[in-house]
């Protein structure tokens, strides 16, 4: 019962702040409501019994990604371009399409019998680390994915730095600087 109440509160927070993202004009307000959505989702992860994913959600999403996003919005000063309309004619077709898709999937979901299993394992730090770093030959082998993910993050960081840096000494970047 108590779990249901917490779930309803957190779910309303998550959906409401996602709607704020949909309807807000300034990207900064959108980013801040997105932080609230991520935080309430982290609470739902904890409620479901995966506290480690909840903590990672807070650290990576609400911490790192949203910090990056708000930082870029502030640096670029996205509000300068306030003449861009929020929606255009395509939205008239997109929104009913997505709602019909959601209704179809929701129909299938509601018809599917499912229930929480009593013997399900709690996604604690101990379980996660034991599974993730199980280097036995018969193990699940998640550690290989983990190593590849390290390479992916490193290369994406290098790509981002190379893409976003000013071309030093080029005439073009100097012109932009003076504006």
């Amino acid at each position, binding site marked *: *019962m108590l779990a*249901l109440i917490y*779930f309803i509160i957190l*779910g309303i927070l*998550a*959906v409401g702040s*996602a709607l704020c*993202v*949909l309807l807000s004009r300034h*990207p900064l307000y*959108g*980013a801040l409501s*997105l932080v609230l*959505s991520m935080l309430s989702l982290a609470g*739902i992860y904890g409620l*479901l019994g*995966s506290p480690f*994913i909840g903590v990672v*959600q807070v650290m990576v*999403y609400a911490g*790192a*990604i949203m910090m*990056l*996003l708000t930082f*870029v919005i502030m640096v*670029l000063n*996205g509000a300068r*371009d306030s003449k*861009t*309309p*929020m929606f255009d004619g*395509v*939205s008239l077709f*997109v929104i009913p399409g*997505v709602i019909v898709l*959601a209704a179809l999937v*929701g129909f299938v*979901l509601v018809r*599917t019998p*499912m229930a*929480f*299993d009593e*013997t*399900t*394992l709690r*996604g604690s730090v101990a379980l*996660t680390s034991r*599974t*993730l770093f199980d280097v036995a030959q018969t193990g*699940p082998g998640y550690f290989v994915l983990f190593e590849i*993910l390290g390479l*992916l*993050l490193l290369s*994406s*960081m290098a*790509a*981002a*730095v190379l*893409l*976003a840096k000013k071309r030093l000494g080029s005439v073009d970047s100097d012109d932009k600087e003076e504006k």
Partner: protein
Amino acid sequence: MALEAIYVQVLALILFSIGLIVAIARRNVFFVLMGVEIALNAVNLSFVGFAKTLPADLSVAGQIVPLFSIAIAAAEACVGLAMVILIFRNRESVDADTYSNMKG
């Protein structure tokens, strides 16, 4: 009344739909990126919700995969925002419709 597995899936479905609408219908490119993040979050929630319906050892995979998906989302946001900075410098606009250089 108790928390049922279906409620989690319905919440994930609602969030995914909102994320999809934000990503496709909004014109500001920052909102497109935010919509992708919302949709990824909804998929993670769905993973965890389904994992909790499985018995003991089977429920581990559904709680590991979201970690990888969160890390992929971090890499995606990093490269995506770098590209937004790059294009914004050329176009001076955040309207996704002006980024039509690669059209055709």
